[in-house]
């Protein structure tokens, strides 16, 4: 994975673990200070994540704070549901992803959604 990709994952992990919106400085401090990461780099990464829609930017007390738009569990559930359920239009086979074994049918998708929701609620 590229260096920026690694950093994106680590920044997301900090936001998820914090459980509250963080400023760029707070994220910067929480990442390993020993590796000499520039403040502006962290800002760039947060900006990229915001553009991709996985992070929101909120203004509070004259400072921008960043938060993940979904919890880790919600995002995992959303990804799995999208991966495992049938193609959105159903008419044609979806060519976007290839599964090791067949996808989940319409009935299965409903059951799966319920199971994922229950699992997310368990935490």
């Amino acid at each position: 994975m590229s260096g920026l990709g690694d950093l994106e994952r680590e920044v997301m992990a900090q936001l998820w673990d914090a459980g509250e919106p963080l400023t760029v400085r707070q994220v910067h401090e929480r990442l390993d200070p020993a590796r000499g990461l520039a403040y502006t780099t962290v800002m760039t990464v947060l900006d990229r994540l915001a553009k991709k829609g996985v992070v929101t930017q909120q203004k509070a007390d004259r400072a921008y704070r960043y938060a993940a738009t979904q919890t880790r569990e919600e995002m995992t559930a959303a990804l799995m549901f999208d991966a495992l359920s049938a193609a959105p239009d159903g008419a044609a086979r979806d060519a976007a992803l290839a599964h090791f074994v067949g996808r989940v049918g319409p009935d299965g998708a409903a059951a799966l959604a319920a199971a994922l929701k229950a699992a997310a609620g368990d935490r």
Partner: protein
Amino acid sequence: MTALLLGALGLTLSLIVPGPLARARWTARAPGATVVLWQSVTLAAVLCALGVVLAAPEELVRAHGADQTFGVAALVAALGVAAVIVVRLLVSVGLVAYRSRVRRARHRLLADLLDAHAGLDDVVRVLDGGLPFAYCVPGRSPRIVLSQGTLRVLDTQQVAAVLAHERAHLSARHDVVMESFTAFYRAVPAPLRSRAPLDAVHILLEALADDAARRRHGNGPLREALQALGGPVGDLELEPHDAARERRWRLDRLAPGAPGTDARLSAAIYAVAAAILVLPTVLLVVPWLDRAMHTWPL
């Protein structure tokens, strides 16, 4: 006459051939050649449609001895309809490719962010969660996504077989083949199209990836992985009917004593695929072109 023959051939290729070809058992012994055969049948059907559109007006004009102006009008109309067919196909290819790329980009992003293995591998991503599944996100920057559940259910050999299967999909760009068939399916008007090629090619590509995986890791681990990942998950019976049938078909190919791939059969299928594309052109289109060149007001 040319238009009638091309029309009959086109309808045969698009409506009559797919059913028996999809049900044929010998395709299991030559999956790669059969994918090429499906491509040849599909492409030949499109060429037949174009041939009908171009030849029919010319033949009508010639049969009725119409005048020059009418001939020009018929030529323009024929070229217009042919252009519509081609553009419709290209637009469909573009749309399918675009939608796939958007969905893949989203999957790649989320899988990278959620990866529980901290990017140890360039391609493989592991997601939290007990539900066992494995899939790949094709493209120029591909990913293979596994769940923790998969790693719990499968042993090392079986995981290696699954990864080899997915890597075969990715390196052979099976997604491009699947996209092209999906695009053709969407572009063809409803009464003329058949789902059979789509489903048949899908399972043949799975067979090709299975063959790549078993060459490296043997039949056993792959078969066990297919059994473990495809069955009911806990008390959830998730597998739809056609997926269950596909899995049985793949398990049968991997069973001890099942016939392997057959090089001679493959060669014969390749020859038929080439003939389907070449023969109609040589026997029907070239003689017609020869006649038409004298008739068309060029």
